[in-house]
Structures are given as structure tokens and as C-alpha cells.
């Protein structure tokens, strides 16, 4: 889990993954964890994967582009 969290953080999806072991007897803990994580996610905003519309290529290319291959 720590590994996956670190990897997601590296590519810009940090803080959106959480794992917690909760027993069926720990109702309070369940409420607390879900409430906290929900609050955290609300601050982060909608998942960027869902809203991603492809790369934003600038309309007017800066002058550095003149006479040069774009390069990918």
C-alpha cells in the first residue's frame, strides 16, 4: 500500500488511496475513517482521470518552436 501510495503521488494522484483494516465490531472507527477520508477527497477535488480531455496543446506556440522540430 505504501508503495502504491508513493507511486500515485509521483504521478500526481497523491492522497487518493487509503487502506484501513476495520473489524465489524469497530463501528466508531469505520465512521471516523470514512468521514476523514471523504473530507480529504473533497478538498482534493474530482479525480483528474475522469476529467482528463487529452493533452492541452497551447494555441499559440511560443517563438522557441520556430524552425525546430517539435519533439515528443
Amino acid at each position, binding site marked *: 500500500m*505504501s*508503495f*502504491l501510495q*508513493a*507511486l*500515485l*503521488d*509521483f*504521478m*500526481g*494522484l*497523491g*492522497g487518493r488511496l487509503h487502506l484501513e483494516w476495520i473489524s465489524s465490531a469497530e463501528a466508531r472507527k469505520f465512521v471516523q475513517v470514512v468521514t476523514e477520508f471523504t473530507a480529504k477527497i473533497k478538498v482534493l477535488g474530482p479525480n*483528474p*482521470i475522469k476529467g*482528463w480531455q*487529452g*493533452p*492541452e*496543446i*497551447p494555441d499559440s*506556440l*511560443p517563438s*522557441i*518552436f520556430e524552425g*525546430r*522540430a*517539435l*519533439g*515528443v
Partner: protein
Amino acid sequence: MNMMHEIVKEWLEQEKIDLFIGYKVVDGHPLPCFFTRENIDDVDNLVESKARYPLEKIAAKVYSTHPEMKIGILARDCNQRALNVLYVWNQLDPEKIETVGINCCPSPAREHADCSYLEREPSGPLKTLIGIENNLKPEQAEVYSQEERFKRWSYEFEKCIKCYGCRNICPVCFCKECSLEHSDLIKKGELPVEIPIFHLVRAVHMAGRCIDCGLCEDACPANIPLRLLYREVNQITARLFDYRAGTDSGQSPFSILGENVTLEPMSL
């Protein structure tokens, strides 16, 4: 006749090895080639080659069908690290492998070398503006905000044409069934690629295995900074598990099999 030819011939003649995997120039291009006792004069055509192929992956393939065969391999540092990983994962038997060490890639650790992996060309302006520069160190790719990171990595991943070149060239990719061909996860042959699942699945599978040879990035037709991504994977693995694939002996922390696997039912 050079030293390398002498050694390989001697090994073949003394039956120290049955097969040597090296390079031979075919139509002007160095290609991986098998050298055998039956065709021993061909050893004179053996070259070191600046081009790199995962020779140890070929050896593992041979081992899977001919486990009794003793194999010699031309090995740079990266080949050696990959061999260590393949030993750890039981894909090769170290008893059956002999290596001839040769000079290696230029890197911060080793300046004088003659292999193909030189520092990549600096990125063009568009990539610099909205993508990820291949030559960055993992720390340098973390200067961007979370939002910026996601946009930049998505730009890189979106270029993927699902050629599976990164997986096919990878010396430590040996699974019989690949998650990247699992229909519940990935739609084969359909573009655009699943962002970011496709590349993250591969990245996760590289943990505890990737030996930073850079062949994946060499092979990538879309110039995706895969080596950078897997270097970060390696750093996380080192930080969390204190494990460095290819140099540390012992089972990978990501192995679910443990040291002694048997198919015997456990006593209750």
C-alpha cells in the same frame, strides 16, 4: 583472434558450456546469435556490439525447454544485474550460467564505456512544455504540483501505441500470463491506452525486479520516460523495503511465494 574468442572456444571445447549467446553482425547489424561446439569456427564472428539485447532473457527461454544445457553469456553490468534477478526468481540456474564480462554503459558510476545507452537527446520544446523530460532524475520530476504531474504524465502515457515493446524487451519480464493482456484490465489493440492503468500496472510489476538497464525506453517508439518512472519505483522499493533488485541477494519483498514453496498440503 582476440581474447574473447579464445575464451569462448576454450569453454565450448572443454564442455564448460554447450552454448554461447553473443552478437554477430548480420547484414551490417549486430544481432544476438548462438555459438555452438558443432560450429566452432563461427566464434571468430563473435562481436561485443554496441547494440544491446536482453541476452539473459534468451538464455531463460532456452533454460525453460533445455534445463540441462550450460549457457555462456556476453554480459555487461546490466546483463549481470538482470541475471541476478532471474536467479532470484528461479528463471535460471546460476550453476548453468557462465559469463564473459565486457565494458558497460556510460553512467554516473562509469564514465568510460561503449554501449548504446548514452544520455538521451534533450527533449523538444513541446515535450518540455507539457510533458516529462526523459533525462530528469526522479526528484526533479517532483517539483511539479500534483495537478501538473498528472497532466504531464498523462501526456506521456497518451502517446503509447500499446506495442508492448517495453515488456517484450524487458529482461526481467518473464510471466507466462501478463496482466497487460488480461481482458478485464486492458483492451488489447484498442487505443487510446488506459490512462494511467496500463503504465502503472507495468510500473508496479517492475518493483523489486527492474534493474535500470533502460532497454524499455530504448525500445519505446513514443519516447515515454519509462526509465524515469521505474527509477522512481526502484527508489520507493529501496526506501520502503531496503531492497535493490539485481544487487541484493535474497527474495524480492514483492514475492508472495516465500523461500520454500511446496505443493504439499499444510498440516493443520
